[in-house]
């Protein structure tokens, strides 16, 4: 009879073995909070297959548990993501609670999710709490941007970015940080982060008069909607081959799963948001944050799957973009 083992004997773990590496947790400093899979967009690269028809959203009771866990865990950063977090009714409550417990709070935004009144209120709150904003902005041309995010999203995103600049976010000399996050518009690896940031800054400033702090680059995850597209378009084998061939052992040390714990909309814990999409819970079994006294222990193993090759390709990628390997 086959017995489950943890960590599982995955292709990724076998690759680590060949390089004499193990993937284990270091000190956990970031609490990532995924407040749900509801989104006003249905981006073609989304590893969570988030969209308008998804009903999973964090309740206020779970938010209370998350805030209590943030207090117990003494995290240095809280990273609030989705779906579109803006669509979750009690987001203000969560941000305010986390800001009391954690030195830095980061909010990921798709830029399009809110109506004008609600958006103004949320931006005001973020300014008051000094929340760091990370906005999805995959390309500097409308065609590549909308190939990924949908028709009409380019103009709306540019307008929102301008609105954030107008209130001080991402402007030179301001302490309101606005970062952009970009994924390639297809089955290819992203360009280097430094070169991409120079290009984005030059084009957005010259053509649109927009400003931001830093650009975070990510490889597309072979999960969720992007995996379905890879399969349907006949790109899966080549893309996985590309990720596997680009495995960089030097990137392993800086992987986000070593220093981050991800809590899903229902309070279940994962090593990262991608494992959440893959259904690989923290430590190999489903645990609720209420069961945790503090962060996961340093040295504990990390669940892996084939998608992990996307974080170790080339320079490697983490929640803050490219790893400086």
């Amino acid at each position, binding site marked *: 009879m086959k017995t489950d083992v943890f960590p599982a004997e995955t292709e990724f773990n076998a690759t680590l073995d060949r390089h004499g590496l193990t993937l284990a947790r270091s000190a956990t400093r970031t609490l990532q909070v995924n407040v749900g899979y509801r989104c006003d967009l249905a981006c073609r690269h989304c590893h969570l297959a988030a969209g308008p028809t998804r009903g999973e959203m964090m309740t206020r009771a779970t938010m209370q548990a998350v805030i209590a866990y943030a207090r117990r865990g003494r995290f240095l950063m809280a990273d609030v993501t989705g779906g579109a977090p803006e669509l979750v009714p009690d987001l203000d409550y969560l941000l305010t609670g986390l800001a009391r417990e954690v030195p830095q709070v980061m909010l990921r935004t798709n830029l399009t999710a809110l109506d004008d009144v609600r958006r103004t209120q949320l931006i005001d709150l973020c300014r008051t709490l000094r929340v760091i904003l990370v906005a999805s902005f995959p390309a*500097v041309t409308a*065609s590549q941007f909308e190939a990924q995010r949908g028709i009409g999203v380019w103009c709306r995103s540019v307008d929102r970015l301008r609105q954030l600049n107008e209130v001080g976010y991402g402007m030179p000399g301001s302490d309101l940080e606005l970062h952009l996050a970009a994924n390639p518009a297809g089955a*290819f690896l992203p360009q280097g982060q430094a070169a991409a940031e120079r290009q984005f800054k030059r084009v957005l400033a010259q053509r649109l008069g927009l400003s931001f702090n830093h650009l975070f680059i990510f490889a597309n995850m072979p999960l969720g909607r992007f995996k379905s597209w890879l399969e349907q378009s006949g790109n899966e084998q080549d893309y996985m081959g590309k990720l596997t061939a680009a495995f960089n052992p030097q990137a392993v040390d800086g992987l986000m799963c070593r220093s981050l714990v991800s809590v899903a909309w229902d309070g279940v814990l994962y090593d990262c948001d991608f494992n959440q999409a893959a259904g690989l819970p923290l430590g190999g079994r489903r645990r609720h944050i209420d069961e945790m006294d503090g962060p996961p222990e340093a040295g504990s193993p990390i669940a892996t799957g084939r998608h992990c090759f996307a974080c170790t390709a080339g320079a490697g990628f983490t929640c803050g973009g490219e790893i400086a390997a």
Partner: protein
Amino acid sequence: MDTYYHPKDLERFQEIGKDAPELARKFFAYYGEVFAEGALSEREKALIGLAVAHTVQCPYCIDAYTTACLEKGSNLEEMTEALHVVTAIRGGASLVHGMQMRRQVEKLSL
């Protein structure tokens, strides 16, 4: 062999060194250096590579430099403009030879 070009041959390109390893080593080292960041960026070099690939009409190079251009941050508008540069030069190169034609006509004609 049912076609002259095989897509998988590109992945096996390194095998060209089997019977001339030192020449291959020098070629691939040079090739790598050429496309590294320098006075021109890697992105600009990939666009030049794409344009030249279309000039020499190498299907391996077209696939490789299309991917390279995307991975270095270029978009389809820039890549298409690069092809028009090639097309303009190739067309212009034909057309400018018309001056030779004209000289010959002038020499032979009353």
